[in-house]
């Protein structure tokens, strides 16, 4: 078994923070993308996403959270693609899309409920047009396709993004999702963040060729982009959403990026990460390269960057206070919402539980 050969992915913004002199024709630079306001907005969202991440990692260390799955290093893939979405588009995340969640307006404190263990959800998916985090690998990709089939039947101009990782591509559900999407010509963009690893398994445990080749096998357009280039992520996703929205059927994007942190706070990547890999990817940082471009183009000045740093600090403070302020939900709430309508077994079990916890000697 050999390493998967990576051809150079499409990019607009180099790791050095300069614009690619000759971006490939497949990936045209959107006209508005160099507007200072947009660049600032992308930079801000990446920076604040990283702050959420840092805070969550710290809160896990101090025991406030049970777990955290960091998206450190993947901010460009997430923020760029999320920025491409229209308001009535709908995204289906894994458990790592805290950047997408941020752009969709999910409050970070609510997001952390899942990792604190107070909720399995945390936000109203319909309201945010953003599904709940899904831990079972690949399951949400089918939901995304079904949702897109719904939009199709509504003759809506909305479209859907399904996020998933390199490892998840091996699951049967992802295959079936691609079969349904192509056959139904559903308005869905498959957005695969290839971050190099599935816990301890490198990409070559899932494939011997680029994921774009596999997706092309279903008969859909594919793009393989530098996932640490927020402009490429935005441009590619915009193209894909427009294409699918106009009835072109599904599109597949592979964003080649890197998981700079551990898989989750429970993981120890030193057991499997080859020497030098992290160092290499540190030179590819998505935030830094955009900052360089912005300074070079005068899109933001020191004051603006300082304000953003202050905003990040305030966000950190708000998250810490928010999480520490979360009280454990009342135990009997665990019986709520198993069904939308009353169910005799739930009612009986709730009744037995209540009797037990209010009777002598039994702590709930």
């Amino acid at each position, binding site marked *: 078994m050999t390493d998967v050969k990576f051809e150079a992915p499409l990019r607009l913004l180099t790791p050095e923070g300069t614009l690619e002199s000759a971006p490939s024709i497949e990936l045209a630079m959107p006209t508005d993308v160099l507007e200072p306001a947009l660049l600032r907005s992308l930079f801000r969202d990446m920076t604040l996403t990283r702050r959420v991440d840092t805070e969550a990692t710290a809160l896990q260390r101090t025991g406030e959270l049970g777990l955290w799955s960091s998206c450190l290093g993947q901010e460009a893939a997430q923020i760029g693609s999320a920025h491409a979405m229209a308001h009535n588009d*709908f995204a289906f995340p894994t458990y790592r899309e805290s950047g997408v969640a941020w752009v969709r307006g999910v409050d970070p404190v609510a997001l952390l409920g899942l990792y604190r263990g107070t*909720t*399995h*959800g945390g936000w*109203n*998916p*319909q309201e945010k047009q953003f*599904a*709940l985090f*899904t831990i*079972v690998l690949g*399951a949400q*990709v*089918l*939901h*995304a*396709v*079904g*949702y*897109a*089939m*719904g*939009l199709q*039947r*509504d003759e809506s101009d909305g479209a859907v993004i399904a996020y998933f990782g390199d490892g998840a591509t091996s699951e*049967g*559900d992802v295959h*079936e*999702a691609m*079969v*349904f999407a192509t*056959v139904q010509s559903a308005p869905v963009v498959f957005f695969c963040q290839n971050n190099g690893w599935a816990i301890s398994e490198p990409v070559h445990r899932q494939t011997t060729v680029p994921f774009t080749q596999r997706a092309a096998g279903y008969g859909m357009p594919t793009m393989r982009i530098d996932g640490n280039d927020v402009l490429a992520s935005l441009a590619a996703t915009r193209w894909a959403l427009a294409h699918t929205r106009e009835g072109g059927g599904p599109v597949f994007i592979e964003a080649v990026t890197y998981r700079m942190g551990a898989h989750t706070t429970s993981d120890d990547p030193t057991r499997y990460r080859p020497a030098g890999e992290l160092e290499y990817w540190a030179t590819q940082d998505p935030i830094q390269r955009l900052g360089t471009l912005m300074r070079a183009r005068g899109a933001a000045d020191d004051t603006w960057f300082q304000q953003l740093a202050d905003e990040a600090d305030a966000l950190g403070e708000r998250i810490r206070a928010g999480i520490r302020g979360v009280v454990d939900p009342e135990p009997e709430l665990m019986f*709520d*919402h*198993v*069904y*939308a*309508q009353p*169910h*005799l*077994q*739930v009612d009986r079990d709730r009744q037995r539980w209540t009797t037990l916890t209010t009777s002598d000697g039994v702590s709930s």
Partner: protein
Amino acid sequence: MTTSDGAQPMTEPMTESMTMVAALNAGLRAVLEDNPRTLLMGEDIATLGGVFRVTDGLAKDFGERRVIDTPLAEAGIVGTAIGLAMSGYVPIVEIQFDGFVYPAFDQIVTQLAKHHYRSGGDTQLPIVIRIPFGGGIGAVEHHSESPEAYFVHTPGLRVWSPADAQQAYTGIQAAVACPDPIIFLEPKRRYWDKASVVLARPTPAELDQMWTSRTLRTGTDVTLVAYGPMVRTCVEAAESMTQQGISATVIDLRSLSPLDLDPVFASVRQTGRCVMVHEAVETVGLGAEISARISEECFFSLEAPVLRVGAPHVPYPPSRFERHYLPNIDRVTAAVRQVMAL
């Protein structure tokens, strides 16, 4: 189908003798007519009308956008149905046979069953998964299974099974009306049984009623509990036992999740004896649950242990064995004799 007697006045509900297949078809037609958000999905359900013809003619009348021949991928069918439900549709899914539901098990158990709970009630998934189930038709393997225990054990799912054409007609409409996900198990050996069916749209109260068990026959000696395919078997057993001087109550559970057991308890408190009958394997089957619940609730009324008549701890055998494998009137009668002897 619903217009065989155009002369009847509108106020009188139409009644027609029909098979369970025809009754299901009429029920599905009714929900497709009444609710534009309903969809049918499955393998061979559109052009062919389903391998059992339950969806015959519906694609023609409601179009391929609402009656969808899907790719052959059961996880895909249930998974995309979940997405469709999230977008506001009411998908009614057909799994072609009982033995082919397992590729969809993950989507059913980890996604469909849990989503309302996970979302704190924000997202309802009103999906009905129709599955022809059970044996007795001489089919090849994987076509005669009784998977209900898996689903009843899973919180978040409802499970329902009709025993006759009328139940099927009303039951499928109750299932579609319910905002929770439902595994709707159609006893395929009863598909071609005819019965008189009142074809009026059920009232809300009638729909609610479908979530309760129903007592088909009241006796004094023993309580027979069954659902789906075994209801007829139990009724016939009860009738034949009258000649032996045994008087049996027969209760059709209909809803397997939730289980409406109060009528069962009430009956057992009178008879003191109960036999639970199902086609499924006995080990950790529904009979075990009913037995345990009866013990818990009626312990001091019981004259004998609750006995279970189900399949042995053996995979569904080749069809030439099935009449030895499946519960039948003789086995029900033998179990009744056994409890009566105690």
